[in-house]
């Protein structure tokens, strides 16, 4: 009788665990080395958003499976995370208190009433690009329903970003103090092609105060001067592409502009870590969907509902890697609640300016299911002297007094 009782108890426990919402109980029927294609897509049906699964079913692309490799952070980022453990809090409005870098809530308790917002902050701060980063060459490819492409290209000093808070690599740490408002980051983006956008330079200043809108200026070659722009319309398309300003890297908007809910957990196939050997130098990508290594990634599902009723999306769903809080996949819904777009993110391991290694966002793509077209962002890799492939210069102590001035915008725009 006792043995029977033990067996029942074990069965109940097993059944309970199997029925729990914990992701690790989700059975995964793919393994590294498999290739998910139109002949066997069913076995990955619970690992791929249905709208994307349709494209595999149609033979548009296939997903080779590789081992999961977690994105990595620098030692400085990890130290800052450790230092802030238990000290970082939320104020009554949801802003971070006592955060000085790293992941704000590494040991997130899902039962915490504010777990969803804390997860959103983790995602936000773990979208990590070092203390500064510079991309020289990039390309945005727009693919129309017929497969024809058009591009937006930056050829030199195309992205320059300096973070003024949460610095973990280069002094001053953690903050470069600014007056009268504390700046969070300054970012310069350049376009060199095609001809009608050549020389457009975009400067963004984002503030620590979540209620303060970004300040934006643009150098416009058609008027040969810098013009102040409105920072509020970040849900507008970037340069005619299928992604908005906020869609860059899946979500680059402000954390407190949404209400959040943890919608569950799921293992899905992502491209969150691009593994060596990296693509050869040059624009390798054709079309939106590409055969690149996918890995089973255990994710939280975070739903974000915009507070602004004029925002173009009614809802944004983000699959967040449990281990690293990186955004892996996102889906957005239109005002009627219909699925509109799906986006995938990827990172690659690069060497920073101080000799450390970290995973850095090197690309993303969005597919518009309603218009049957998509946009891909890629960075042009280059080889360091030591033979290592790099996609960007990270934590190299960029001169923020040089890049984020109207004089530099004009000079860069006239090249």
């Amino acid at each position, binding site marked *: 009788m006792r043995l029977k009782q033990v067996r029942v108890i074990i069965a109940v426990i097993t059944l309970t665990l199997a029925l729990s919402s914990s992701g690790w109980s989700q059975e995964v029927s793919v393994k590294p080395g498999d290739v998910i294609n139109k002949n066997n897509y069913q076995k990955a049906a619970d690992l791929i958003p249905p709208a994307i699964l349709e494209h595999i079913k149609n033979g548009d692309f296939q997903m080779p499976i590789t081992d999961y490799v977690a994105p990595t952070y620098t030692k400085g980022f990890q130290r800052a995370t450790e230092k802030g453990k238990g000290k970082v809090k939320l104020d009554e409005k949801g802003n971070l208190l006592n955060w000085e870098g790293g992941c704000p809530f590494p040991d997130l308790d899902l039962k915490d009433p504010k777990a969803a917002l804390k997860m959103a902050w983790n995602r936000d701060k773990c979208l990590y690009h070092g203390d500064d980063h510079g991309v020289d060459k990039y390309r945005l490819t*727009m693919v129309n329903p017929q497969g024809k492409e058009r591009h937006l290209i930056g050829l030199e000093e195309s992205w320059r970003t300096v973070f003024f808070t949460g610095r973990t690599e280069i002094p001053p740490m953690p903050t470069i103090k600014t007056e009268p408002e504390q700046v969070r980051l300054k970012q310069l983006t350049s376009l060199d*092609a095609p001809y009608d956008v050549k020389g457009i330079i975009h400067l963004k200043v984002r503030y620590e105060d979540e209620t303060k809108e970004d300040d934006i200026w643009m150098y416009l070659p058609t008027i*040969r001067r810098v013009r102040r*722009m409105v920072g509020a319309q970040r849900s507008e398309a970037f340069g*005619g592409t299928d992604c908005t300003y906020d869609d860059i890297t899946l979500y680059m908007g402000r954390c407190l502009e949404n209400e959040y809910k943890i919608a569950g957990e799921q293992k899905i196939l992502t491209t969150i870590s691009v593994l060596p050997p990296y693509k050869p130098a040059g624009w390798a990508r054709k079309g939106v969907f590409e055969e690149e290594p996918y890995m089973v990634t255990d994710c939280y599902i975070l739903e974000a509902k915009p507070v602004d009723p004029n925002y*173009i999306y009614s809802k944004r769903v983000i699959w967040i890697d449990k281990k690293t809080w990186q955004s892996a996949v996102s889906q957005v819904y239109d005002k009627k609640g219909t699925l509109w777009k799906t986006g995938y993110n990827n990172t690659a391991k690069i060497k920073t300016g101080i000799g450390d290694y970290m995973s850095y966002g090197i690309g993303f793509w969005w597919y518009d299911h309603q218009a049957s077209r998509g946009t891909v962002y890629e960075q042009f890799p280059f080889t360091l002297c030591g033979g290592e492939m790099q996609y960007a210069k990270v934590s190299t102590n960029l001169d923020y007094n*040089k890049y984020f001035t109207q*004089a530099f915008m004009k000079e860069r725009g006239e*090249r």
Partner: protein
Amino acid sequence: MEARKKGKFIVVLLCLIGSVFLLLAKSSAALTLLDDRVRITGYFENTTGWHTQDALAADRGHLSICRNVFQLDTTIKLLENGQTNIILHNIFRFFYEASFALDDGVNRFPRDKMQIEQGNDKLRELYLTIQSGQWRFSLGKQQLVWGESDLFRMADIINPLDLSYNYIWAPFKDTRIPLWMLVGNYTFPGDHNYSIEVVFNPGDYHSWRLADAGGNWSLPAKRFFSMPGFLPGTFPGPLDNPFPYLSYEDTLPTVQWFLDEWRRQSHNHGLRIDDWCAGARVKGNFGPWDLGLFYYYGISGLPTFYFDMAKGGALTFRFPRQQNIGMTANVYDDFTQTVWRFESAYTTNGSLAAFQWVFPPMKEVSRDVVAFMLGFDRPTWLPSKKHHWPRQNTWFLSGQWFQKWALSDYRKKGVVIPGVLEKTTPVAALDMTNDNSQTMFTFTANTFVGQGNKYSPQFLFMYDPSGNGAFWPSFTYSPNNWFWLQIGYQMILSHNTRDGYMGLFRDNDQAYLQLKLSFY
């Protein structure tokens, strides 16, 4: 016939050039040399327009413009070492006006003049930029643009304008006349982006370029004798044509003589140190505000003229010195989600020609002018039942209020320079009353539709409360990276021929098609 054959040959040649461009453009790659140190981009553009009204004389249905432009933009990196960049920029532009060859109905009077006068800017810009740390220098033939305004020039006064081929419809980047000058800029490190910019022109002076008599946008041709304040109501006949016994063609040689004298007496002949100009601008961020102050000591781009009795009554043009002092400001307001722009300028020692009822009939008078512009920019979502339209783009709405005053009392004195001040309807037959203020409102709305901003509708309105204005709708189609097509209509609205910037061009409405093939 010979000219017609030559014209057709040129058109065929242009088509061939355009085809070569098409092939180059489809390659979708800039020409790069020397390991990306030299980059060459460019475009071929054709603008063809048709009169829809009898502007000057039986113009309706005839070509108003068939301008072909080939432009090459080149940048050459001479030094790039992470600290200092030295880059040579140049723009070559060639143009050919084909309307004379293609359409016998186009007034042929200005044909040769146009090619000569506009053809001397093949090397449109050539300048060297040196950027090192907080410093930036720019030396050579270039444009320098200050200000916050679209269309109104209070701070954007360093380069004169070429209004000869498309009046105000062409972008200023294409109509500003580049000048040889040295520009230095220093931005102070810190949070406020304080900067100081200094410009020195060693004497490369150009006056504004107006269309030759009989040309498409010829300013004085038809309405020379009915310009503001000039002999209004003095002679029998309608105000539009106080000389009814003269035909339009009869007036052209006189008007062209006037313009030729203008050009001969201006200093458009190389560097003259006596014509030096200089200015400075300081800017900075103060909280949410961008503020700037500027000063420019220059030479008026438009002349005054009078009859010099010491030279036997010879028509004499003078290009007076002017001092311009002003400020600019912009701020983003979160409550209205709008960028507000402001620009103002005070021009001292401005000289004008005025009519008087004694001999000689013209004299110079000086006046101070103050002007300001207040404008706004607001990207706005256009709601519809299901979603916004366009789905992922706002409508960019931009408006401006422009106001100008002459501070001296010009009542009963008259002002000849057209378009500068308004003329009110005279109370009495010989009343030379002149309003000493000018008001203008502009409003622009545009958006982008489709992936790659494939379609772009735009509307521009201009309104002068004295009773004139303009309306310019256009639609642009750009299906790929190298092809761009625009169709539009330029409409002038005015109840007489003397008011504001538009009255003189009443009845000059045009429909146009513009094609651009670019390569990058």
